[in-house]
């Protein structure tokens, strides 16, 4: 009984702490893309942990039922799938809308595409610097 209580507390509190961690990390990130990026511990690990803690709590108080297990599994998979697809959509729209990318984002391959090197030659730096002056929505920096 006691061990299960401790386990529930550990799961739920770890999940909640991960939410706080992500929120604090969003303050330290400097542009929109980084803020979306640092949010994934909360969605990928924090929310499933809270769900797991809640499921064990229900298991302890109401006993096992297939229906609740099914709900928990569906919820778990939804968190994983939905959060990753939602992050993709957010980042995609952030780039498309032309939100500024922080100037220390280096290299930024959206501005200077990677040129595969043939044979023993090294990269051509002049080609990179010429493309770097392009003026597109995703290329502004703060």
């Amino acid at each position, binding site marked *: 009984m006691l061990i299960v209580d401790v386990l529930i507390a550990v799961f739920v509190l770890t999940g909640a702490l991960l939410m706080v961690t992500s929120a604090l990390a969003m303050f330290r990130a400097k542009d929109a893309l980084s803020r979306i*990026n640092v949010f994934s511990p909360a969605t990928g690990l924090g929310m499933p942990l809270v769900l797991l803690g809640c499921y064990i709590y229900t298991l302890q108080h109401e006993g096992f039922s297939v229906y609740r297990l099914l709900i928990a599994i569906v919820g778990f998979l939804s968190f994983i799938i939905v959060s990753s697809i939602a992050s993709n959509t957010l980042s995609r729209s952030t780039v498309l809308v032309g939100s500024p990318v922080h100037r*220390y984002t280096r290299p930024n391959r*959206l501005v200077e595409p990677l040129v595969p090197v043939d044979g023993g030659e*090294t990269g051509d730096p002049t080609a990179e610097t010429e493309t770097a002056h392009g003026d597109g929505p995703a290329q502004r920096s703060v």
Partner: protein
Amino acid sequence: MIDPLRLLGYFLWIFKEIVSGTLSMTTSLFTPHGYSRPMIVQVPLRCTTDLEITMFASSITITPGTLVVAIAAGDEADDPPTLFVHVLFADSEADALDGLYDMETRLLTAMRRRPPKPVADAILRGAQGTQEGETA
């Protein structure tokens, strides 16, 4: 064609990556200076089908510290489909590409029952070559 055991192993490996990425994000949160080294890297893919590309993009995004920002469709000839990935905590571009291609190899081995062709050497060398050019 899908190898269920390997796919299960892949999901466990992704879970391990999520945990280790969360730890590195938490430790860097309490580092006073130099919080992150953001970069957007270009990843030409060896994935071909829609399912493989979707699973790879989702795996990248669910891992803390990496985020897919754009997808370029490939043409049938020689341009592979390409992902643009925002990476926060990698030491260098080559380092980030190594991690991403390692993930792709694991995924494709699980999806096709045999390992994919190794990454074209020109891509990795191109990443290093431009970095030398930038510092020169």
